[in-house]
């Protein structure tokens, strides 16, 4: 038999707290496989009905941006105000849009 890895891999857990919201990262846990990771996430992170949907991703598969490149990565969009609704004026009578 091939050698067994000692420790269960680490998984990142994302939970949708209610319909209409996106999944949010809540923490991590250890599990042998994806099925178990989802079960464990349900038992560990939704003991008080915190969620209706769970995503798990093995932590080694999460690729992150480098924080020292925060400038080039995110600042260019800071001045694209036209992407934000408050950039546009709407006559008072129309109410909320």
């Amino acid at each position: 038999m091939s050698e067994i890895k000692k420790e269960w891999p680490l998984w990142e857990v994302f939970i949708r707290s209610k319909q209409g919201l996106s999944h949010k990262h809540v923490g991590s846990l250890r599990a042998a496989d994806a099925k178990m990771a989802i079960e464990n996430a349900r038992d560990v992170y939704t003991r008080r009905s915190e969620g209706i949907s769970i995503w798990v991703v093995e932590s080694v598969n999460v690729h992150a941006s480098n924080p020292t490149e925060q400038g080039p990565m995110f600042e260019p969009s800071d001045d694209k105000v036209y992407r934000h609704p408050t950039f546009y004026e709407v006559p008072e009578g129309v109410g909320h849009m």
Partner: protein
Amino acid sequence: MFNFVAMQVENDVKQMEEQFQAKIDADIRIEPRDWMPEKYRKTLIRQMSQHAHSEVVGMLPEANWITRAPSLRRKVALLAKVQDEAGHGLYLYSACETLGADREETIDDLHSGKAKYSSIFNYPTITWADIGAIGWLVDGAAIVNQVALQKTSYGPYARAMVKICKEESFHQRQGYEIITVLANGTPAQKAMAQDALNRWWWPSLMMFGPTDADSPNTQQSMAWRIKRHTNDELRQMFIDATVKQAEVAGLTIPDKDLKWNEERGHYDFGEIDWEEFYNVIKGNGPCNKQRIEARRKAKEEGMWVREAAMAYAEKQKSKVKAA
């Protein structure tokens, strides 16, 4: 030439340290992949893992009464509470993993005696009232500390604390409820409650750690906002909040020097037996060996289970690949 490079590196580090401290001073959270001083990282791992160990070892004295809880309502509440503590341990180990501290290694440090955990869990739970006293005093003391830590500078730690504090809110209440029901019960029940308070009061005060004069790392931890109040400040907050609760329950706090100090606006209290504290930390508490033994046994006896799950997972993976 060599010296010049070394100096350059030193300057860079100094500059990064200054930027780092400026972020902390501006209350900007540090996230896992951000640059941080090595000592900050080490101190954090130590503090978070100690905290995680305390949650998990802390399950044992209370779990001791699950099978003997006096009513079904108490049994399920206690079970849910101890389970929460397992969850807290897990959240904190998970926070440690964000800094690359592998859980298994972290736990091995606990089992080998290298890592510490809260000294309070080395005291025995000998009556049902101890379950009340732990919820009321020990969780009460923990909450004082944890509420402050919700604003700690390290993001994953702060977020874990927010979750933990939300869950803790029922722990102290269920403990205090147990105590007040006993205090208002038969003479035997009341005696049981008072006895538990007598035994748990002083160890609870020790939970906040040595006096400020004797905790040399406090200064740096405060500057890094890993700690948001000193040990003595937190201890005083806890005492001030608890005295009234004991009064309402009709129980006497076992400290003849305890009295309100108008000038300070706080309660004065008696001398803590620090010799006992240091001995319990060193391993000489009544239950140190028993607690670590129980955790080690759980890990050892669980090994074949973890291996089996891993072997099964790998077989499934290779089946998928082969197909």
